[in-house]
């Protein structure tokens, strides 16, 4: 079920500056988000992580300076993204299946192929039998799985995930992190989180963003593919480093 249609594009920020409400959020921010990998943006609340995702999703109200290049090996790549937020945003009047194909519905592109893909994803996420269930009758974990499938249905190579698992209990969160890592393999994933353990389990690269205006304070690259177990030596090794980094930033 992973996205394997060519290598997903990289995202290169070069001297990006953005002000919102007179306050500088980013000033000459430069960084590279590697294509086809999961990059976790870690940082304290209000440091601009979510703003960065909105910038990537092309929010029209964000007039920034500098360049954001989205490029694959063959040059310029498609800028289309899919977005998943902390709130599942499932429409309460639609069944789970209709929520999963929402993008196609909103573009008037529902087809047998779309329905078949939705069914395959629903089965892969262990939601078979709940296709016609309304969101109100689903558990928090199932709802968030639905939101993940809706994101994957878009078949975009860049997935923007804004603290998607933060509202879940620890066990459900862990299961969903595993499912998400498996289903999003091959895509360029930008995952915003404030949880260092989540970043270490999910990310190929972790960037700690902090300061005002925000800058990348620390960058950790992990060797093997996610998801990693919590007791993985690499996770253990970097956990205290990241935690100390975050504590230092929040005490400043």
């Amino acid at each position, binding site marked *: 079920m992973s996205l394997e249609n060519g290598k997903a594009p990289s995202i290169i920020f070069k001297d990006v500056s953005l002000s919102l409400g007179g306050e500088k959020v980013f000033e000459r921010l430069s960084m590279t988000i590697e294509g086809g990998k999961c990059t976790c943006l870690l940082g304290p609340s209000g440091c601009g992580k979510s703003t960065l995702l909105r910038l990537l999703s092309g929010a029209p109200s964000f007039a920034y300076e500098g360049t954001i290049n989205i490029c694959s090996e063959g040059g310029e790549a498609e800028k289309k993204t899919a*977005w998943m937020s902390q709130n599942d945003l499932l*429409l309460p009047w639609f069944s789970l299946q209709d929520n999963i194909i929402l993008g196609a519905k*909103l*573009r008037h592109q529902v087809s047998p192929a779309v329905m078949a893909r939705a069914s395959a994803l629903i089965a892969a996420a262990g939601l078979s039998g709940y296709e016609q269930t309304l969101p109100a009758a689903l558990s928090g974990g199932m709802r968030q799985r639905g939101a993940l499938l809706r994101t994957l249905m878009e078949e975009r190579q860049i997935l923007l995930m804004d603290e998607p698992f933060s509202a879940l209990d620890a066990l459900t969160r862990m299961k969903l992190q595993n499912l998400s890592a498996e289903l999003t393999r091959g895509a360029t994933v930008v995952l915003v989180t404030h949880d260092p353990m989540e970043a270490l389990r999910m990310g190929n690269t972790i960037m700690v963003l902090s300061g005002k205006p925000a800058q990348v304070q620390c960058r950790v690259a992990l060797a093997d593919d996610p998801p990693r177990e919590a007791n993985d030596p690499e996770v253990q090794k970097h956990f205290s480093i990241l935690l100390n980094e975050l504590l230092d930033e929040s005490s400043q």
Partner: protein
Amino acid sequence: MKGVRLVVLAVGLVCLWQVVVTLTGAPHYILPDPVRVFQALLSHFPVLLQHLQITGAEIMLGFLLGVFLGTGTALTMFLSPLLKRWVLPLLVISQAIPVFALAPILVLWFGYGMASKVAMAVLIIYFPVTASFYYGMQRTDPDLFELARVMEARPLAIMRYIVIPSALPAFASGIRVATAVAPIGAVVGEWVGSSEGLGFYMLHANARMQIDVMFAALTVLSIMALFFYFSIDYLLDKLIFWESKQGIM
């Protein structure tokens, strides 16, 4: 359970009415007792039914037209911020004018027939319908718009699948208010000038000191208004199936 509650309430009210009549010793031309009113209801039933049809038609037409116009205005204001800036103050000003004071003017303009009563009902329900639908649409979760934008949604599809369903619970509150007040508009219109309808028949009976007939007309009007309210309430609960029940019963 719902049916039992309704019967208990109705019987309780009739008993209370009888108690008030007995305790106060009010003469029947001031406050007739329930039995007398029931007898008047039976003896005047055919003619009451005839007037009920007129008032019922006025209420239904006023309701449908008011909901149609209110919905149209709310959609226009939501889709065109420029028009909204002009229409919203007008809407608020229009509410500052007491609608009942307009009744004689409406009768003067639209005549003694059904049109003036329909206009009155439209005027009285237009604001709650417009305001509830407009503010309902306004309260759509901004993140849903962001999601739709990233999904490259078509504008009409956003309205159909996201904005209008989001607004329905608030809109339903407006419709419920409209259902409750539409009969007031029609009856006040009939009081000011008409030759048929339950409001007219009440005045007619009042002038002849047939207070029991007046109460019988009032009873018929109340039963119809309740039936109208509960029917709409039932339909709204069916339409907004994802919300917990909002109805009063």
